[in-house]
């Protein structure tokens, strides 16, 4: 016998009377469950107005936050991935690329734009996590390289927004060498005495952390982003213990001396343009 007796039947609303909310009009914060309209959410740079949770966003949103009047020239737009190894796992790499392009409307995991940030010229390379986990393959490496070339040509700053699970396995050795390639390009940018700001967002791990993401003249990050070399699951398996609270968060990485500061999205543009002013760009 149960202690409580239900007096009224469970769900009584008839499905006909259920209020339909069209998809995409509302945003519910996964942290504090606060609900706002999508427009309001965009107005706060996709940050929860109540708890400050930074939603994962892509290159389109970051470009709109950074570039004056959202005006920029996108470069290296036509590059797509080859399949040099004819790689197949549970699905062929070619098909995976095709499906992802159709699904996301993106050509690969990075877009590069040149424009003005509070009046300062800059080239911004931004990763898209939606494209195979923001993984770095030949296209990301080449776009990064062309972005650096563009910055050198225009004598302006280079900014990279990282958001990646690491190197793309389906390009194996080629992906690995993109770590070398991007690092090599950064030596050329430095020789031209142009600044490189690395902005790490949630998540930045693996080969991206172990190459260009950690090589900024200044390294900055969004609050509470996951930043590390090995993924937390791998570290946990290695040490055979639970990980301490906040392990591999931006705050943790800042505390250990690998970031210059953590910046909220609303302050991002100002802080970057102040840096460019200091760097005399």
């Amino acid at each position, binding site marked *: 016998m149960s202690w409580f007796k239900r007096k009224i039947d469970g769900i009584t609303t008839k499905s006909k009377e259920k209020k339909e909310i069209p998809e995409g009009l509302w945003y519910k914060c996964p942290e504090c469950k606060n609900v706002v309209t999508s427009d309001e959410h965009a107005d706060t740079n996709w940050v929860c107005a109540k708890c400050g949770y930074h939603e994962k966003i892509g290159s389109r949103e970051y470009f709109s936050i950074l570039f004056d009047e959202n005006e920029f020239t996108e470069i290296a737009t036509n590059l797509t991935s080859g399949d040099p190894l004819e790689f197949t796992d*549970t699905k062929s790499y070619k098909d995976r690329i095709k499906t992802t392009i159709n699904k996301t409307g993106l050509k690969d995991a990075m877009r590069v734009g040149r424009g003005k940030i509070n009046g300062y010229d800059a080239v911004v390379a931004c990763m898209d996590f939606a494209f195979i986990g923001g993984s770095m393959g030949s296209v990301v490496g*080449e776009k990064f390289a062309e972005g650096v070339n563009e910055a050198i040509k225009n004598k302006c700053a280079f900014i990279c927004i990282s958001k990646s699970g690491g190197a793309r396995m389906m390009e194996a050795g*080629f992906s690995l060498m993109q770590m070398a390639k991007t690092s090599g390009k950064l030596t050329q940018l430095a020789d031209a005495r142009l600044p490189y700001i690395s902005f790490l967002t949630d998540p930045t791990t693996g080969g991206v952390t172990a*190459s260009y993401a950690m090589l900024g003249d200044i390294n900055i990050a969004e609050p509470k982003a996951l930043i590390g070399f090995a993924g937390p699951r791998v570290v946990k398996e290695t040490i055979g213990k639970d990980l301490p609270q906040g392990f591999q968060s931006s705050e943790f990485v800042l505390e250990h001396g690998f970031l210059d500061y953590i910046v909220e999205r609303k302050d991002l543009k100002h802080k970057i343009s102040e840096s460019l002013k200091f760097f005399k760009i």
Partner: protein
Amino acid sequence: MNYLDFEEPIKELHLQIEKLRESQKKAGVDVSAAIADLEKAAKAKTEEIYSKLDPWQRVQVSRHPDRPYTLQYIEYLTNNNWIELHGDRTVKDDKAMIGGFGFIDDVGVMFIGQQKGTTTKLRQYRNFGMANPEGYRKALRLMKLAEKFNRPIVTFIDTPGAYPGLEAEERGQGEAIARNLYEMMKLQVPVICIIIGEGASGGALGIGIGDRVLMLENTWYSVISPESCSSILWRSWDQKITAAKALKLTAEDMHNNRLIDGIIREPLGGAHTDPTATFENVKQVILNELATLSKLNPKDRSEKRIDKFCSMGVVVQ
């Protein structure tokens, strides 16, 4: 001697040879003709097996417990006369990453490499050849030292990966490797990198930016080990053989894809069957390459190195 699973037929023949030798000793019967025949057969079998190793079998050879490690190479090349240097001057001395200087004939060289252990205790002591950030920083310190005194650098790569531990993350494993990639590009002295066993991902690349990057015949070099690749892409550990094939991680594949500069041949049956021959091959290659590289002026050499890595990748316009 340890045998790999696919070496069973060779093992059988070697066992028969052993038996005959014993009986010859005991009974005093001359069976040298039979022994010679068996030895011939064993060699033929080894040739047959090693002429068509699949990628997974190569991975197995690269991890063979008898395979020579970095220290043995350095000791041979310097005639056992080298000075080991320790410490990154910040945290500690990483036992998985060793380095020091010596002379190959009369050529002064800074040696750096991951070191694996040969016994259970030593394997632990060397952390299975998985360096921490201080290992990469120690390596960079020694490279800068070599650069200061205009001596070439030779690195020996043999690692299942950079150590994915808690302290490694705290001390910036990612930053340590990234810094090495960046700084190695600019080194003003010749740099030769040789993969002598396992070349796993960023942990290998962290000492792998060279004017010449060479792989021994039975080694592997890729972005991930076949086992981890299998577990991530196929969500099971059982596809390592398929993964090894898909990753194109052998010396031959890496060379065909122009991701390395050359292959150093190993004696029949792998480096461990005749370490001296292996060391001698490596020695000749190092001396030849250094002779060529030292003719370039430092700035051009570094620019060429950067251009080489910047040309890697396949994209569709």
